């Protein structure tokens, strides 16, 4: 079967400590018939978007990325740019919407990058989940070889897939897209009330105790509602929920570790991929191997 070429924006973290996210994304897409091609010439998205009215510095790199995508889109005749990291998705999409709404800003940026072609505004930035849903979840169902039957999963969206409103991939207070996918994979989805609450984000650099408290709450409640595992799509959420359990455990006696996985890893496993070179469990602080042993 010939694979359909799709532009894929990996982002910095996927090229290093989140190989588990990158490889499981690319491999799960391959199973479904897509060749995820790394966007040629991409640069860092900047991770956070500028909120000041006069801010342009956080937009420029993203618009440059969109111009790269614009060029490549013509070659493959598909204007979709898929990101899987929540922050990358959020930044690229916001930048696109921002310059479409504020044409003056786009003009400033086009002038500043005078050796680049102008951005025409035709790139459709999509999160992997949205891409999958649009292509049809039934495709996924057809490829499930090892249904995750009995695995109790807490779906965790975090912030940047749902907020602010203009970039939300689903209802911001009661999203279901991840639940839908997990159910197709055969997993048992728990009603996880904190699925759209922040993990503490970049405070993990200078205020890791705060983030550890968030992790403590997010993991404890997941446990209280019966989850075995939490799944996410953001490498920062992943790092915070996974690694910061170390501090949480030191501070709260009785706290029990819970493994964190990317939804793409669950997809890969359900598709029958049991390859360390794709799953990279060595990149997890809390190993998911035991909880997932039945399907490995």
């Amino acid at each position: 079967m010939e694979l359909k070429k799709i532009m894929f924006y990996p982002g910095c973290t996927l090229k290093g400590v989140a190989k588990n996210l990158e490889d499981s994304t690319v491999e799960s897409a391959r199973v479904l018939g897509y060749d995820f091609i790394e966007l040629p010439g991409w640069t860092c998205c900047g991770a956070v978007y500028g909120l000041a009215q006069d801010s342009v510095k956080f937009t420029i790199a993203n618009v440059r990325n969109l111009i790269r995508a614009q060029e490549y889109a013509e070659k493959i005749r598909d204007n979709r740019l898929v990101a899987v990291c929540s922050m990358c998705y959020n930044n690229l999409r916001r930048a696109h919407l921002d310059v479409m709404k504020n044409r003056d800003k786009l003009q400033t940026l086009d002038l500043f990058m005078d050796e680049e072609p102008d951005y025409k505004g035709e790139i459709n930035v999509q999160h992997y989940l949205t891409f999958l849903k649009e292509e049809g979840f039934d495709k996924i169902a057809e490829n499930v070889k090892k249904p995750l039957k009995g695995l109790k999963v807490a779906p965790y969206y975090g912030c940047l897939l749902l907020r602010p409103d203009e970039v939300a991939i689903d209802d911001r207070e009661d999203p279901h897209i991840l639940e839908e996918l997990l159910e197709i994979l055969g997993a048992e989805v728990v009603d996880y009330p904190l699925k759209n609450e922040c993990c503490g984000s970049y405070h993990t650099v200078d205020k890791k105790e705060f983030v550890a408290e968030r992790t403590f709450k997010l993991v404890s409640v997941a446990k209280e509602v019966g989850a075995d595992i939490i799944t996410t799509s953001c490498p920062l959420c992943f790092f915070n929920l996974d690694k910061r359990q170390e501090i949480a455990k030191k501070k709260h006696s009785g706290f029990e570790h819970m493994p964190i996985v990317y939804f793409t890893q669950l997809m890969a496993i359900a598709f029958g991929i049991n390859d360390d070179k794709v799953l990279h469990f060595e990149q997890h602080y809390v190993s998911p191997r035991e909880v997932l042993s039945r399907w490995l």
Partner: protein
Amino acid sequence: MAMKRIGVFICHCGRNIAGTVDVKRVAEEIGKREDVAFSTTYVFMCSQPGQKLIEDSIKEYNLDGVVVANCSPTLHERTMRNAAARAGLNPYRVEIANIREWAAWPHEDNPEAATRKAIRIINATIEKLKANASLEPLEVPVIRRALVIGGGVAGIQAALDLADAGIETVMVEREPSIGGNMFRLSETFPTLDCPQCILTPKMNDVGGHPNIKLYTYSEIEDVSGFMGNFKVKIKKKATFVDWDKCTGCGECLRVCPVSVKSEYDLGMKDRTSIYIVNEQAVPLKALIDQDSCIRLKFEKKVQEGKIKPKKNVKICSKCADVCEPEAIHFKNNEEIVEEEVGTIVVATGYEVMPAEAFPELGGKYPDVITALQFERLLSPSGPTAGVPRRPSDGKIPKSIAFVHCVGSRDPQNGVPYCSRICCMYTIKQAMLVKHALPDTAVYDFYIDIRSNGKGYEEFYHRAKEEYGVNFIRGKVSKVYKVGDKYRVQGVDTLTGRIVEVDVDMVILATAAKGSEGVKELAKKLRIPYDEWGWLKEVHLKLKPLDTPVGGVFIAGAAQFIKDITDSVAQGSGAAAKSLGLLSKPQLEKEPLLARVDTEICAGCGRCKDQCAYGAITIDPIRHVSVVNEALCEGCGACSANCPTTAIQVVNFKKGQIIRAVDILAEVF
């Protein structure tokens, strides 16, 4: 015959006009016109000496037309026309030049421009006035009957007041029983009366009143006609039971095998497929819900050809089998009836937003319910006999949280306004919980307590001081389920701390909106409404019960959410308004109506298509437009769309308007 002796009276309106416009200069300038016999100024033209000045001047200068330059004609046109009439001048020879709203107020910062603009407005008004005809009001007959739409407490009050005054009154209610939302309540604030005690006598009065004709389970299908002469088509929905025979004994309810959620109990209780709303319903009659009845569903499928009827199979007829008076016939008895009335009172009430609309506040959980649903659990006649229990498991709650302003005061996610009744009913519900369950902890999360009614603030203090309700100032942001409990994530904005509490039940005071379907009804009545389904009054302060359609009044929560006290007062008010019209043998109508020049009219019908009042027909023989003066409101839509000038509104003729506009648009 153009007027030649016009009087112009310029009002100072205190400093409102004179503070900006140089009124003396205006009077002088206007006085120079040949057709103006007299011009003057006065501090308040609307005052009695002001009116006297106009009356005396008409006589003294033998005026044949009057322009009063003052405020908007919506305020004092009538005053000035009456004054002229007293002096023997035809009132339609008086025009208002609005120099306050048009010149003085918008140009406060530029008195010179305001003065020049005032002169121009008056000159334009004089040109319009000069071609005014003398007119006499029209007289139309009145049908001395009234219609009340909506059988809640406001409608009940209106109907009883009208009926007691000797007016034959038709009441239409879409539910099977009258009583409205008040009939669902547990007790009322601040007196703690139970509606089952104070409302049911009024309901029975309606049911048994010789002057009231009651249509329940019925809806308005169509309204035509005009003030004093409305024709109303009413759809009586299918009950499948002969209400003339039904005694309301309730035997059928005991044998019906089907169980569905009760609308009256807002899903807090089940009812059978054949049902009576409750024991105190008026009228006390049974009806069958065709969507759940086994027999009717089966018959429908057979009719649609989806299944073939089998022989020798007996389809459920348990209710009919036990019905002694043989009232249950399973026949679709929907019918349309017609009534003629002189006035209409619209009292369609309100509804509240559902809990499900607020997923972040746990609206999807069974024990997170709206306050109106909780009324049923607090009601002695409700499913839990007044001792609240959790809908999920029937357990008695040990702790309850109340959340105010759910969707209210929230233009981004709900409605922008305060829903007005929630503070008080929440306080009441908190009290009733403490009364029924003294050991249950009650947490009331509010933003501001709005207790602006007689006895309301005192009621709030009782809840705090005597009942032990915990009040916490801050909006709750999230409610979620952990184990058997609901975790309420709130804030205390006064101490500046995040507050978290685990409770067994959460009650949401969700925003109120106009009743479902009210917009469609409003369209039939041609009365305006807003995006939240509230019917629009003519003037918020001074004409709160009037609509722009003569003879149609609004009352109660249909106009905007209000409590029982205010609803009852408005019900009586609307009844008085109706009586005012119905007590006259003939109604006077403004003669400013469309008239057809049959010499010019080609009968093209464009005016007919534009008329919102159905006042125009095309004479099939002469092939010209004909205006029904009783229906015409003089809006002018016909005239604006006439390709010639065949149809025009009296005293708003094309020549008059063009001359006025020419002056207004003249370049300096």
